[in-house]
Protein backbone atom coordinates (compact mmCIF):
# COMPACT_ATOMS: atom_id res chain seq x y z
CA UNK A 1 0.00 0.00 0.00
CA UNK A 2 1.50 3.27 -1.09
CA UNK A 3 0.16 6.44 0.44
CA UNK A 4 0.83 9.82 -1.03
CA UNK A 5 1.17 12.07 1.96
CA UNK A 6 0.46 15.23 0.01
CA UNK A 7 -3.02 14.04 -0.79
CA UNK A 8 -3.67 11.80 2.17
CA UNK A 9 -2.93 14.38 4.86
CA UNK A 10 -5.48 17.01 3.77
CA UNK A 11 -8.11 14.34 3.22
CA UNK A 12 -7.51 12.94 6.65
CA UNK A 13 -7.69 16.35 8.32
CA UNK A 14 -10.93 17.13 6.51
CA UNK A 15 -12.42 13.83 7.55
CA UNK A 16 -11.39 14.37 11.15
CA UNK A 17 -12.93 17.82 11.20
CA UNK A 18 -16.12 16.49 9.76
CA UNK A 19 -16.37 13.94 12.53
CA UNK A 20 -16.08 16.58 15.24
CA UNK A 21 -19.02 18.13 17.03
CA UNK A 22 -20.04 21.55 15.90
CA UNK A 23 -18.66 23.30 18.95
CA UNK A 24 -15.14 22.18 18.16
CA UNK A 25 -14.89 23.91 14.84
CA UNK A 26 -14.02 27.54 15.00
CA UNK A 27 -13.50 30.28 12.53
CA UNK A 28 -9.76 30.17 12.95
CA UNK A 29 -9.65 26.56 11.91
CA UNK A 30 -8.36 25.34 15.23
CA UNK A 31 -10.22 22.61 17.00
CA UNK A 32 -11.57 23.82 20.29
CA UNK A 33 -11.10 21.97 23.53
CA UNK A 34 -13.70 23.84 25.55
CA UNK A 35 -16.16 21.14 26.25
CA UNK A 36 -19.77 22.16 26.81
CA UNK A 37 -21.52 20.91 29.88
CA UNK A 38 -23.95 18.62 28.14
CA UNK A 39 -21.59 17.18 25.59
CA UNK A 40 -22.29 13.54 24.86
CA UNK A 41 -19.73 12.94 22.13
CA UNK A 42 -22.33 11.14 20.12
CA UNK A 43 -20.50 11.37 16.84
CA UNK A 44 -17.20 10.04 18.19
CA UNK A 45 -18.08 7.81 21.12
CA UNK A 46 -18.08 4.66 19.07
CA UNK A 47 -16.12 1.57 19.78
CA UNK A 48 -15.29 -1.52 17.85
CA UNK A 49 -13.73 -1.92 14.47
CA UNK A 50 -16.12 0.64 12.96
CA UNK A 51 -15.50 3.21 15.64
CA UNK A 52 -12.71 5.57 16.57
CA UNK A 53 -10.30 2.76 15.89
CA UNK A 54 -10.55 3.43 12.16
CA UNK A 55 -9.35 6.98 12.73
CA UNK A 56 -6.32 5.69 14.62
CA UNK A 57 -5.47 3.18 11.93
CA UNK A 58 -5.71 5.80 9.23
CA UNK A 59 -3.42 8.04 11.23
CA UNK A 60 -0.92 5.20 11.52
CA UNK A 61 -0.93 4.98 7.74
CA UNK A 62 -0.10 8.63 7.57
CA UNK A 63 2.75 8.18 10.02
CA UNK A 64 4.15 5.21 8.18
CA UNK A 65 4.03 7.09 4.91
CA UNK A 66 6.23 9.82 6.28
CA UNK A 67 9.81 9.80 5.26
CA UNK A 68 12.57 10.06 7.80
CA UNK A 69 13.40 13.67 7.18
CA UNK A 70 9.91 14.93 6.43
CA UNK A 71 8.05 17.43 8.55
CA UNK A 72 5.99 15.68 11.17
CA UNK A 73 4.54 18.71 12.90
CA UNK A 74 1.12 18.39 11.31
CA UNK A 75 0.71 14.74 12.05
CA UNK A 76 2.01 15.34 15.56
CA UNK A 77 -0.76 17.88 16.14
CA UNK A 78 -3.25 15.39 14.83
CA UNK A 79 -1.94 12.69 17.13
CA UNK A 80 -2.23 14.95 20.16
CA UNK A 81 -5.73 16.06 19.24
CA UNK A 82 -6.88 12.51 18.69
CA UNK A 83 -5.33 11.47 21.97
CA UNK A 84 -7.16 14.27 23.75
CA UNK A 85 -10.45 13.21 22.18
CA UNK A 86 -9.87 9.64 23.26
CA UNK A 87 -9.21 10.78 26.79
CA UNK A 88 -12.46 12.72 26.80
CA UNK A 89 -14.38 9.79 25.40
CA UNK A 90 -12.98 7.44 27.99
CA UNK A 91 -13.66 9.92 30.76
CA UNK A 92 -17.19 10.45 29.57
CA UNK A 93 -17.77 6.72 29.32
CA UNK A 94 -16.56 6.16 32.85
CA UNK A 95 -18.72 8.99 34.16
CA UNK A 96 -21.81 7.63 32.47
CA UNK A 97 -21.13 4.20 33.92
CA UNK A 98 -20.74 5.60 37.38
CA UNK A 99 -23.99 7.47 36.99
CA UNK A 100 -25.80 4.41 35.74
CA UNK A 101 -24.48 2.21 38.49
CA UNK A 102 -25.38 4.77 41.13
CA UNK A 103 -28.89 5.07 39.72
CA UNK A 104 -29.32 1.32 39.74
CA UNK A 105 -28.05 1.18 43.28
CA UNK A 106 -30.42 3.90 44.37
CA UNK A 107 -33.32 2.22 42.61
CA UNK A 108 -32.62 -1.10 44.23
CA UNK A 109 -32.48 0.57 47.63
CA UNK A 110 -35.70 2.52 47.15
CA UNK A 111 -37.84 -0.39 46.04
CA UNK A 112 -39.17 -2.25 49.00
CA UNK A 113 -40.91 -5.00 47.13
CA UNK A 114 -38.49 -6.96 44.97
CA UNK A 115 -39.34 -6.27 41.41
CA UNK A 116 -39.70 -9.23 39.16
CA UNK A 117 -39.98 -9.38 35.45
CA UNK A 118 -43.08 -11.46 35.93
CA UNK A 119 -45.03 -8.43 37.03
CA UNK A 120 -44.21 -6.56 33.85
CA UNK A 121 -45.78 -9.16 31.66
CA UNK A 122 -49.20 -8.88 33.09
CA UNK A 123 -50.88 -5.96 31.40
CA UNK A 124 -54.56 -5.61 31.87
CA UNK A 125 -56.36 -6.60 28.75
CA UNK A 126 -58.82 -3.81 29.17
CA UNK A 127 -56.03 -1.26 29.07
CA UNK A 128 -54.80 -2.70 25.79
CA UNK A 129 -58.25 -2.50 24.28
CA UNK A 130 -58.54 1.06 25.36
CA UNK A 131 -55.23 1.96 23.80
CA UNK A 132 -56.03 0.31 20.52
CA UNK A 133 -59.48 1.73 20.35
CA UNK A 134 -57.94 5.14 20.71
CA UNK A 135 -55.53 4.39 17.88
CA UNK A 136 -58.23 3.26 15.57
Amino acid at each position, binding site marked *: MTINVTTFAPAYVAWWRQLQPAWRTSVSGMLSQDIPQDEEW*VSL*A*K*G*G*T*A*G*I*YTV*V*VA*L*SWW*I*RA*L*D*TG*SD*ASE*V*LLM*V*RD*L*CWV*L*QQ*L*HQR*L*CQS*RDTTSSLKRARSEDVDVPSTSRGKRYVP*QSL*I*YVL*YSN*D*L
Partner: protein
Amino acid sequence: MSFEQVRFTIVQLTDLDSETPTPNVAPTPPQPGGEIHETPDGSPIESNALATGEGEPTPSTQHRDSEESQVGGNIASGSPLEPKLGGENVEGGRVGATATGKEDTNPTVVVEVAEAKKQEEGSATSTSATHAIEMEENEKLTSDTTHDGGPGRSGRKDDVEMKAIEAGGKTDVTMGDVALGDVAMGDVMGDGNDNIDNHAVKPDTPAVTINVTKISDTSSTAHTNSVATHAATVTSQAATISSPTQAATAQVATSTAHAATISSHTATSSSQAVYHSGTRSSTVDSTSIDGGFGGLLGALIPLGASDVGCPQWLQNMLEYLRQSSTEPDWQALIAELIAHEKASPVTGVSCWLYRNSYSLIGFARKCRHSVVLLRYKLGSKNTRRTFL
Protein backbone atom coordinates in the same frame (compact mmCIF):
# COMPACT_ATOMS: atom_id res chain seq x y z
CA MET B 1 1.15 -98.76 36.66
CA SER B 2 0.53 -97.18 39.97
CA PHE B 3 1.53 -93.72 40.95
CA GLU B 4 4.31 -94.86 43.25
CA GLN B 5 5.79 -96.97 40.48
CA VAL B 6 5.84 -94.05 38.18
CA ARG B 7 7.58 -91.99 40.77
CA PHE B 8 10.17 -94.67 41.34
CA THR B 9 10.84 -94.81 37.62
CA ILE B 10 11.28 -91.13 37.58
CA VAL B 11 13.85 -91.28 40.28
CA GLN B 12 15.78 -93.94 38.43
CA LEU B 13 15.75 -92.00 35.24
CA THR B 14 17.02 -89.11 37.16
CA ASP B 15 19.93 -91.09 38.41
CA LEU B 16 20.77 -92.24 34.94
CA ASP B 17 20.55 -88.75 33.53
CA SER B 18 22.35 -87.14 36.37
CA GLU B 19 24.86 -85.74 33.94
CA THR B 20 22.20 -83.55 32.42
CA PRO B 21 22.95 -80.14 33.83
CA THR B 22 19.57 -78.57 33.51
CA PRO B 23 16.06 -79.84 33.04
CA ASN B 24 14.65 -79.69 29.55
CA VAL B 25 11.28 -78.26 30.06
CA ALA B 26 9.60 -75.24 28.74
CA PRO B 27 8.97 -73.00 31.68
CA THR B 28 5.40 -72.59 32.67
CA PRO B 29 4.51 -69.05 33.51
CA PRO B 30 4.34 -68.86 37.23
CA GLN B 31 1.48 -67.06 38.80
CA PRO B 32 2.34 -63.74 40.27
CA GLY B 33 2.61 -63.67 43.96
CA GLY B 34 4.34 -66.98 44.41
CA GLU B 35 1.51 -69.47 44.40
CA ILE B 36 2.04 -72.85 45.95
CA HIS B 37 1.79 -75.84 43.64
CA GLU B 38 1.74 -79.34 44.85
CA THR B 39 3.66 -82.22 43.44
CA PRO B 40 2.00 -85.57 43.03
CA ASP B 41 3.38 -86.62 46.38
CA GLY B 42 1.87 -83.63 48.04
CA SER B 43 5.01 -81.61 48.71
CA PRO B 44 4.55 -77.95 48.01
CA ILE B 45 6.54 -76.22 45.33
CA GLU B 46 6.72 -72.52 45.09
CA SER B 47 5.92 -71.01 41.76
CA ASN B 48 9.33 -69.42 41.68
CA ALA B 49 10.74 -72.84 41.32
CA LEU B 50 8.91 -73.29 38.07
CA ALA B 51 11.15 -70.83 36.41
CA THR B 52 14.18 -72.80 37.38
CA GLY B 53 12.80 -75.89 35.82
CA GLU B 54 11.03 -77.12 38.90
CA GLY B 55 7.48 -77.74 39.83
CA GLU B 56 4.41 -78.10 37.73
CA PRO B 57 5.01 -79.26 34.22
CA THR B 58 3.40 -77.91 31.15
CA PRO B 59 1.34 -80.25 29.07
CA SER B 60 2.78 -79.04 25.81
CA THR B 61 6.35 -79.28 24.74
CA GLN B 62 8.00 -76.27 23.21
CA HIS B 63 11.14 -75.85 21.24
CA ARG B 64 13.06 -73.24 23.12
CA ASP B 65 16.46 -73.30 21.52
CA SER B 66 15.96 -70.07 19.67
CA GLU B 67 13.99 -68.29 22.31
CA GLU B 68 16.67 -67.56 24.81
CA SER B 69 17.71 -64.29 23.33
CA GLN B 70 14.16 -63.40 22.60
CA VAL B 71 13.18 -63.83 26.19
CA GLY B 72 15.99 -61.64 27.36
CA GLY B 73 15.06 -58.99 24.86
CA ASN B 74 11.50 -59.05 25.97
CA ILE B 75 12.42 -58.63 29.55
CA ALA B 76 14.77 -55.80 28.84
CA SER B 77 12.36 -53.97 26.63
CA GLY B 78 9.39 -54.60 28.83
CA SER B 79 7.29 -55.97 26.01
CA PRO B 80 3.90 -57.54 26.58
CA LEU B 81 5.52 -60.92 26.33
CA GLU B 82 7.22 -60.44 29.64
CA PRO B 83 4.32 -61.51 31.84
CA LYS B 84 4.12 -64.80 29.98
CA LEU B 85 7.62 -65.62 31.07
CA GLY B 86 7.19 -65.12 34.70
CA GLY B 87 4.87 -62.24 35.32
CA GLU B 88 6.04 -60.36 38.32
CA ASN B 89 8.94 -62.70 38.81
CA VAL B 90 11.17 -61.39 36.11
CA GLU B 91 14.20 -63.19 37.34
CA GLY B 92 12.44 -66.49 37.21
CA GLY B 93 11.42 -65.82 33.66
CA ARG B 94 14.98 -65.16 32.66
CA VAL B 95 16.38 -68.21 34.31
CA GLY B 96 13.74 -70.45 32.91
CA ALA B 97 14.43 -69.22 29.46
CA THR B 98 18.11 -69.76 29.92
CA ALA B 99 17.64 -73.21 31.30
CA THR B 100 15.75 -74.40 28.28
CA GLY B 101 17.98 -76.08 25.86
CA LYS B 102 16.32 -78.80 23.93
CA GLU B 103 13.02 -80.33 23.22
CA ASP B 104 11.52 -82.60 25.81
CA THR B 105 8.70 -85.02 25.28
CA ASN B 106 8.11 -85.81 28.90
CA PRO B 107 8.20 -82.69 30.92
CA THR B 108 6.68 -84.35 33.91
CA VAL B 109 9.70 -86.50 34.43
CA VAL B 110 12.06 -83.61 34.12
CA VAL B 111 10.19 -81.53 36.59
CA GLU B 112 10.10 -84.29 39.07
CA VAL B 113 13.79 -84.81 38.68
CA ALA B 114 14.54 -81.21 39.17
CA GLU B 115 12.35 -81.07 42.21
CA ALA B 116 13.75 -84.19 43.82
CA LYS B 117 17.41 -84.34 42.91
CA LYS B 118 18.74 -81.25 41.19
CA GLN B 119 17.48 -78.46 43.33
CA GLU B 120 20.79 -77.14 44.47
CA GLU B 121 22.45 -77.58 41.14
CA GLY B 122 19.61 -75.92 39.35
CA SER B 123 19.71 -73.04 41.72
CA ALA B 124 23.35 -72.52 41.10
CA THR B 125 22.86 -72.66 37.37
CA SER B 126 19.97 -70.31 37.42
CA THR B 127 21.83 -67.87 39.60
CA SER B 128 24.77 -67.72 37.26
CA ALA B 129 22.52 -67.38 34.30
CA THR B 130 20.60 -64.64 36.00
CA HIS B 131 23.72 -62.68 36.66
CA ALA B 132 24.79 -63.07 33.07
CA ILE B 133 21.55 -61.74 31.71
CA GLU B 134 21.41 -58.98 34.22
CA MET B 135 24.87 -57.85 33.24
CA GLU B 136 23.84 -57.76 29.61
CA GLU B 137 20.80 -55.75 30.44
CA ASN B 138 22.75 -53.39 32.61
CA GLU B 139 25.10 -52.81 29.76
CA LYS B 140 22.19 -52.04 27.52
CA LEU B 141 20.70 -49.66 29.99
CA THR B 142 24.02 -48.02 30.52
CA SER B 143 24.54 -47.57 26.83
CA ASP B 144 21.04 -46.20 26.45
CA THR B 145 21.67 -43.74 29.20
CA THR B 146 24.93 -42.69 27.71
CA HIS B 147 23.57 -42.01 24.27
CA ASP B 148 20.08 -40.90 25.02
CA GLY B 149 20.35 -39.08 28.28
CA GLY B 150 18.14 -41.67 29.86
CA PRO B 151 16.61 -45.05 29.28
CA GLY B 152 13.64 -45.33 27.03
CA ARG B 153 14.58 -42.51 24.70
CA SER B 154 15.40 -42.94 21.11
CA GLY B 155 18.47 -40.77 21.23
CA ARG B 156 18.84 -40.39 17.50
CA LYS B 157 18.02 -36.74 17.53
CA ASP B 158 20.53 -36.00 20.24
CA ASP B 159 23.13 -38.02 18.45
CA VAL B 160 22.64 -35.98 15.35
CA GLU B 161 22.85 -32.79 17.31
CA MET B 162 25.97 -33.95 19.04
CA LYS B 163 27.60 -34.70 15.72
CA ALA B 164 26.53 -31.34 14.46
CA ILE B 165 28.30 -29.68 17.34
CA GLU B 166 31.36 -31.82 17.16
CA ALA B 167 31.64 -31.13 13.46
CA GLY B 168 32.49 -27.59 14.38
CA GLY B 169 35.56 -28.83 16.13
CA LYS B 170 34.44 -27.85 19.60
CA THR B 171 32.70 -29.61 22.35
CA ASP B 172 32.16 -26.53 24.47
CA VAL B 173 29.75 -24.39 22.57
CA THR B 174 29.64 -20.73 23.30
CA MET B 175 26.77 -18.46 22.51
CA GLY B 176 28.60 -16.76 19.74
CA ASP B 177 29.82 -19.85 17.97
CA VAL B 178 26.50 -20.83 16.51
CA ALA B 179 24.93 -17.41 16.20
CA LEU B 180 27.60 -15.51 14.38
CA GLY B 181 25.32 -14.68 11.51
CA ASP B 182 22.55 -13.75 13.84
CA VAL B 183 24.81 -11.64 15.98
CA ALA B 184 25.49 -9.50 12.96
CA MET B 185 21.81 -8.73 12.96
CA GLY B 186 22.29 -6.99 16.25
CA ASP B 187 23.59 -4.04 14.33
CA VAL B 188 20.09 -3.02 13.48
CA MET B 189 20.74 0.64 13.49
CA GLY B 190 23.64 0.29 11.16
CA ASP B 191 25.87 2.32 13.40
CA GLY B 192 28.14 -0.56 14.20
CA ASN B 193 27.82 0.01 17.89
CA ASP B 194 26.02 -3.15 18.68
CA ASN B 195 28.86 -5.09 20.12
CA ILE B 196 27.62 -8.33 21.42
CA ASP B 197 29.92 -10.16 23.73
CA ASN B 198 28.60 -13.48 24.73
CA HIS B 199 30.44 -15.27 27.40
CA ALA B 200 31.07 -18.90 27.02
CA VAL B 201 28.52 -21.28 28.26
CA LYS B 202 29.75 -24.70 29.13
CA PRO B 203 26.85 -26.99 29.64
CA ASP B 204 27.30 -30.39 31.11
CA THR B 205 25.21 -32.35 28.71
CA PRO B 206 24.72 -32.09 24.99
CA ALA B 207 21.01 -31.49 25.44
CA VAL B 208 21.70 -28.48 27.57
CA THR B 209 24.22 -27.29 25.06
CA ILE B 210 21.68 -27.30 22.30
CA ASN B 211 19.17 -25.39 24.34
CA VAL B 212 21.63 -22.76 25.33
CA THR B 213 22.67 -22.34 21.76
CA LYS B 214 19.13 -21.87 20.58
CA ILE B 215 18.36 -19.34 23.23
CA SER B 216 21.50 -17.46 22.53
CA ASP B 217 20.49 -17.29 18.90
CA THR B 218 17.22 -15.75 19.85
CA SER B 219 18.73 -13.26 22.18
CA SER B 220 21.22 -12.29 19.57
CA THR B 221 18.71 -11.84 16.81
CA ALA B 222 16.53 -9.59 18.84
CA HIS B 223 16.37 -6.12 17.43
CA THR B 224 17.87 -4.60 20.48
CA ASN B 225 19.65 -1.36 20.21
CA SER B 226 20.66 -1.29 23.80
CA VAL B 227 20.59 -4.37 25.93
CA ALA B 228 22.41 -4.74 29.18
CA THR B 229 21.80 -8.14 30.54
CA HIS B 230 23.11 -9.38 33.80
CA ALA B 231 22.91 -13.08 34.47
CA ALA B 232 19.98 -14.03 32.39
CA THR B 233 18.43 -17.18 33.62
CA VAL B 234 18.05 -19.55 30.77
CA THR B 235 15.29 -22.02 30.90
CA SER B 236 13.63 -24.16 28.36
CA GLN B 237 11.10 -26.86 28.16
CA ALA B 238 13.62 -29.55 27.39
CA ALA B 239 16.23 -28.72 29.98
CA THR B 240 16.54 -26.43 32.92
CA ILE B 241 19.78 -24.62 33.44
CA SER B 242 20.21 -23.79 37.04
CA SER B 243 23.84 -24.10 37.98
CA PRO B 244 25.99 -20.98 37.93
CA THR B 245 28.26 -22.43 35.30
CA GLN B 246 25.33 -22.87 33.00
CA ALA B 247 23.93 -19.41 33.36
CA ALA B 248 24.04 -17.60 30.11
CA THR B 249 25.36 -14.11 30.40
CA ALA B 250 25.17 -11.74 27.51
CA GLN B 251 26.31 -8.18 27.34
CA VAL B 252 25.49 -5.76 24.61
CA ALA B 253 27.08 -2.34 24.81
CA THR B 254 25.46 0.47 22.87
CA SER B 255 25.17 4.22 22.90
CA THR B 256 21.65 5.08 24.08
CA ALA B 257 21.46 2.36 26.64
CA HIS B 258 18.41 1.71 28.69
CA ALA B 259 18.08 -1.14 31.07
CA ALA B 260 16.84 -4.31 29.57
CA THR B 261 16.36 -7.86 30.59
CA ILE B 262 16.35 -10.81 28.35
CA SER B 263 13.54 -13.13 29.10
CA SER B 264 14.70 -16.31 27.54
CA HIS B 265 11.85 -18.41 28.77
CA THR B 266 9.79 -17.16 25.89
CA ALA B 267 12.86 -16.83 23.75
CA THR B 268 12.28 -13.17 23.23
CA SER B 269 14.22 -10.14 24.15
CA SER B 270 12.78 -6.90 25.31
CA SER B 271 14.11 -3.75 26.76
CA GLN B 272 12.58 -1.24 29.07
CA ALA B 273 12.63 2.42 28.38
CA VAL B 274 11.04 5.39 29.98
CA TYR B 275 9.65 8.31 28.08
CA HIS B 276 7.87 11.46 29.02
CA SER B 277 5.07 13.12 27.16
CA GLY B 278 4.12 16.45 28.66
CA THR B 279 2.44 15.67 31.90
CA ARG B 280 2.37 12.03 31.06
CA SER B 281 5.14 9.74 32.13
CA SER B 282 5.01 6.21 31.00
CA THR B 283 7.26 3.26 30.86
CA VAL B 284 7.36 1.40 27.63
CA ASP B 285 8.67 -1.96 26.65
CA SER B 286 10.96 -1.09 23.87
CA THR B 287 13.34 -2.71 21.51
CA SER B 288 14.33 0.48 19.78
CA ILE B 289 14.12 4.14 20.52
CA ASP B 290 14.45 6.35 17.53
CA GLY B 291 12.54 9.33 18.83
CA GLY B 292 10.66 10.29 15.73
CA PHE B 293 7.91 9.40 13.34
CA GLY B 294 8.55 6.82 10.74
CA GLY B 295 10.47 4.54 13.03
CA LEU B 296 9.58 0.91 12.51
CA LEU B 297 12.29 -0.61 14.58
CA GLY B 298 10.41 -2.10 17.41
CA ALA B 299 7.23 -2.46 19.33
CA LEU B 300 6.47 -0.13 22.19
CA ILE B 301 4.14 -1.30 24.85
CA PRO B 302 2.91 1.49 27.06
CA LEU B 303 2.49 0.55 30.65
CA GLY B 304 -0.75 1.46 32.30
CA ALA B 305 -2.61 0.25 29.26
CA SER B 306 -2.41 -3.41 29.84
CA ASP B 307 -3.59 -5.63 27.09
CA VAL B 308 -5.47 -7.78 29.52
CA GLY B 309 -9.13 -7.37 28.85
CA CYS B 310 -8.51 -5.76 25.52
CA PRO B 311 -10.73 -7.01 22.71
CA GLN B 312 -9.17 -9.67 20.60
CA TRP B 313 -9.56 -7.77 17.37
CA LEU B 314 -7.56 -4.91 18.86
CA GLN B 315 -4.91 -7.19 20.30
CA ASN B 316 -4.24 -8.46 16.81
CA MET B 317 -3.58 -4.93 15.65
CA LEU B 318 -1.70 -3.58 18.62
CA GLU B 319 1.69 -4.65 17.39
CA TYR B 320 1.10 -3.00 14.05
CA LEU B 321 -0.09 0.19 15.65
CA ARG B 322 2.74 0.34 18.14
CA GLN B 323 5.34 -0.24 15.49
CA SER B 324 4.07 2.69 13.49
CA SER B 325 6.15 5.05 15.54
CA THR B 326 8.10 5.26 18.70
CA GLU B 327 6.93 8.78 19.35
CA PRO B 328 5.71 9.08 22.93
CA ASP B 329 2.59 10.92 21.86
CA TRP B 330 1.72 8.15 19.48
CA GLN B 331 2.27 5.53 22.16
CA ALA B 332 0.08 7.51 24.50
CA LEU B 333 -2.58 7.56 21.82
CA ILE B 334 -2.44 3.79 21.55
CA ALA B 335 -2.73 3.54 25.30
CA GLU B 336 -5.82 5.73 25.25
CA LEU B 337 -7.30 3.64 22.49
CA ILE B 338 -6.76 0.49 24.53
CA ALA B 339 -8.34 2.06 27.57
CA HIS B 340 -11.26 3.24 25.50
CA GLU B 341 -11.88 -0.15 23.97
CA LYS B 342 -11.48 -1.91 27.27
CA ALA B 343 -14.29 0.19 28.63
CA SER B 344 -16.58 -1.51 26.11
CA PRO B 345 -18.11 1.49 24.42
CA VAL B 346 -21.07 1.04 22.19
CA THR B 347 -20.03 0.04 18.75
CA GLY B 348 -20.77 1.99 15.64
CA VAL B 349 -23.63 -0.30 14.64
CA SER B 350 -25.25 -0.15 18.04
CA CYS B 351 -24.91 3.64 17.96
CA TRP B 352 -26.76 3.72 14.69
CA LEU B 353 -29.47 1.50 16.08
CA TYR B 354 -29.73 3.68 19.17
CA ARG B 355 -30.04 6.88 17.23
CA ASN B 356 -32.62 5.38 14.88
CA SER B 357 -34.40 3.37 17.49
CA TYR B 358 -37.36 5.72 17.66
CA SER B 359 -37.87 5.69 13.94
CA LEU B 360 -37.53 1.91 13.88
CA ILE B 361 -40.05 1.53 16.65
CA GLY B 362 -42.41 3.86 14.87
CA PHE B 363 -42.05 1.89 11.68
CA ALA B 364 -42.75 -1.35 13.50
CA ARG B 365 -45.80 0.09 15.15
CA LYS B 366 -47.14 1.24 11.82
CA CYS B 367 -46.66 -2.19 10.36
CA ARG B 368 -48.37 -3.82 13.26
CA HIS B 369 -51.19 -1.34 13.15
CA SER B 370 -51.73 -1.98 9.47
CA VAL B 371 -51.89 -5.71 9.96
CA VAL B 372 -54.29 -5.41 12.86
CA LEU B 373 -56.48 -3.06 10.93
CA LEU B 374 -56.53 -5.32 7.92
CA ARG B 375 -57.44 -8.40 9.89
CA TYR B 376 -60.05 -6.48 11.80
CA LYS B 377 -61.70 -5.38 8.64
CA LEU B 378 -61.70 -8.91 7.31
CA GLY B 379 -64.14 -9.83 10.01
CA SER B 380 -62.31 -11.68 12.70
CA LYS B 381 -63.45 -10.29 15.99
CA ASN B 382 -60.72 -12.09 17.86
CA THR B 383 -58.03 -10.56 15.74
CA ARG B 384 -56.78 -8.19 18.33
CA ARG B 385 -56.63 -10.69 21.08
CA THR B 386 -54.92 -13.36 19.04
CA PHE B 387 -52.52 -10.93 17.52
CA LEU B 388 -51.61 -9.48 20.79
